[in-house]
């Protein structure tokens, strides 16, 4: 009986979709546009989080410059203090010679390195913290240490890190808000499409109810029609986004080179899941609400 009902629902959904083709296509188009926007939002959000992840890895490291006259024992003692700190993941001591070698190894410094006489670089302690937000705390500890180079204690740029973190949380909040608005708009669109379909078929619905159809029997075809609309829209949106994603990344990469954008093919799978699921859910929800008033016995 369930199967027969499902067959009936699928048939009438299919018929209704084609019978009101103009309205159905308008709905598909509108939802496609909305899902494209939602998809772009997801892609930009993903790119941003990729960039931020890289950034986080970088700034969760702080190097403490050791003043030249600090005795080695004092450095080792401080290294142990840091290692014992629960906020610290790892500490590495880099001697003046190692620092110079590192400096020279960087191809950007080739010309500059040739002009250096002696070793002007400080020895340093490179500290890796567990949480990005703990960098400031370690910085404070380092500045209080007697062996720190007073002219240039650490490479910590407090404000910048905080601002980046704040910005990233605002951006993700804005992304979520935008997504919510887009979802709401598409629910309203599906609702109105289904209302039109329901209006065309109100006589049929009245007869259905009089001969004893259950609410779900009446509602089923419309909900399926909504899901169909949503899935078709999601497929179109997905196809367009998949085609446009790599060239868009290339384009932005060349325009803003300092942001390490990259094409992430794995994200396509996630995007496909999200869009199809969103399309189906929005379609179902929109038609459920749209048909409610007429179906209530």
């Amino acid at each position, binding site marked *: 009986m369930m199967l027969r009902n499902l067959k009936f629902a699928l048939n009438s959904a299919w018929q209704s979709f084609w019978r009101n083709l103009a309205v159905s296509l308008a709905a598909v188009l509108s939802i496609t546009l909305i899902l494209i926007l939602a998809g772009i939002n997801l892609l930009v959000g993903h790119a941003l989080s990729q960039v931020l992840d890289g950034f986080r890895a970088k700034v969760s490291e702080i190097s403490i410059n050791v003043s030249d006259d600090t005795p080695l024992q004092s450095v080792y003692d401080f290294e142990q203090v840091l290692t014992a700190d629960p906020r610290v993941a790892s500490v590495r001591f880099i001697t003046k010679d190692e620092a110079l070698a590192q400096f020279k190894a960087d191809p950007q410094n080739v010309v500059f390195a040739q002009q250096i006489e002696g070793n002007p670089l400080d020895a340093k302690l490179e500290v890796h913290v567990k949480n990005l937000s703990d960098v400031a705390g370690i910085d404070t500890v380092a500045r209080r240490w007697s062996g720190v180079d007073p002219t240039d204690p650490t490479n910590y740029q407090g404000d910048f890190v905080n601002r980046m973190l704040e910005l990233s949380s605002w951006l993700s909040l804005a992304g979520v808000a935008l997504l919510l608005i887009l979802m709401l708009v598409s629910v309203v669109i599906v609702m109105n499409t289904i209302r039109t379909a329901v209006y065309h078929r109100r006589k049929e619905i009245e007869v259905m109810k009089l001969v*004893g159809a259950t609410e779900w*029997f009446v509602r089923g075809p419309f909900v399926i029609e909504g899901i169909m609309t949503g899935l078709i829209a999601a497929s179109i949106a997905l196809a367009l986004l998949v085609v446009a994603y790599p060239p868009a990344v290339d384009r932005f990469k060349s325009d803003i080179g300092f942001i390490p954008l990259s094409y992430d093919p794995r994200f396509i799978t996630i995007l496909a899941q999200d869009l199809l699921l969103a399309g189906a859910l929005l379609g179902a929800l929109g038609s459920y609400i749209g048909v409610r008033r007429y179906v209530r016995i």
Partner: protein
Amino acid sequence: MVLTPDFESRPVISFQRVFKTYPTGTEALRDINLEVPEGDFLFLVGPSGAGKSTVVRLLIREEKPTKGKIFVDGIELGRMKRRKLPYYRRKVGLVFQDFKLLPNLTVYENVAFALRVLGEPDQHVRDRVAEALDTVSLSAKENTYPANLSGGEQQRVAIARALVHAPRFIIADEPTGNLDPATAWEIMQLFLRINARGATVVMATHNREIVDLLRRRVVAIDAGQIARDDRSGRYHDDVAKPQVRAQ
């Protein structure tokens, strides 16, 4: 052939002190007490606006009583849960003045619709629809669309649809209202046959000739109250001044 209703047994339809006031303030029914035994054939008569249609709407639970209780087959309609309603409606066959056929479905499909909604298997649907169309003598027109049928034929399709699921009750609201006298008489014959098979029939009607000819139970409603309940009645109780009560 005609089943005599058993007035002594428990009634299958029972109105107990039923009042109905619409949200607009219109007092449609006042203190209605009515019992219908199984197998009865009952005419509801009365002028337009007297409350006949309200009785029908209460019976199919399109409306709930404002006060009082209505029992059909042991179920109290006013307290029935909404999700139970479809199952109640399946016990009832409904026939309306405007037929309520679906124009985009053929005669066969219109009748089959009542069974499809119940999720009946295809073979069962075919057999039952053929039987119902045979009862109303429309087997030859099963592939015709309603627009190509006469009014009487359309009403016969509606009756076939109302009885295809073998309901215990037939509720008809002015089923002959749109038909000429000869066709109306044909339709009445059908209702009598359905009643003879055991179904209880409640029919709201304005058709004086038919009521007077059949001499069945007549419940007259006037200004929301039962004015008269005769076991073998006529459309008007007072033949001398019919115009007063006529619409």
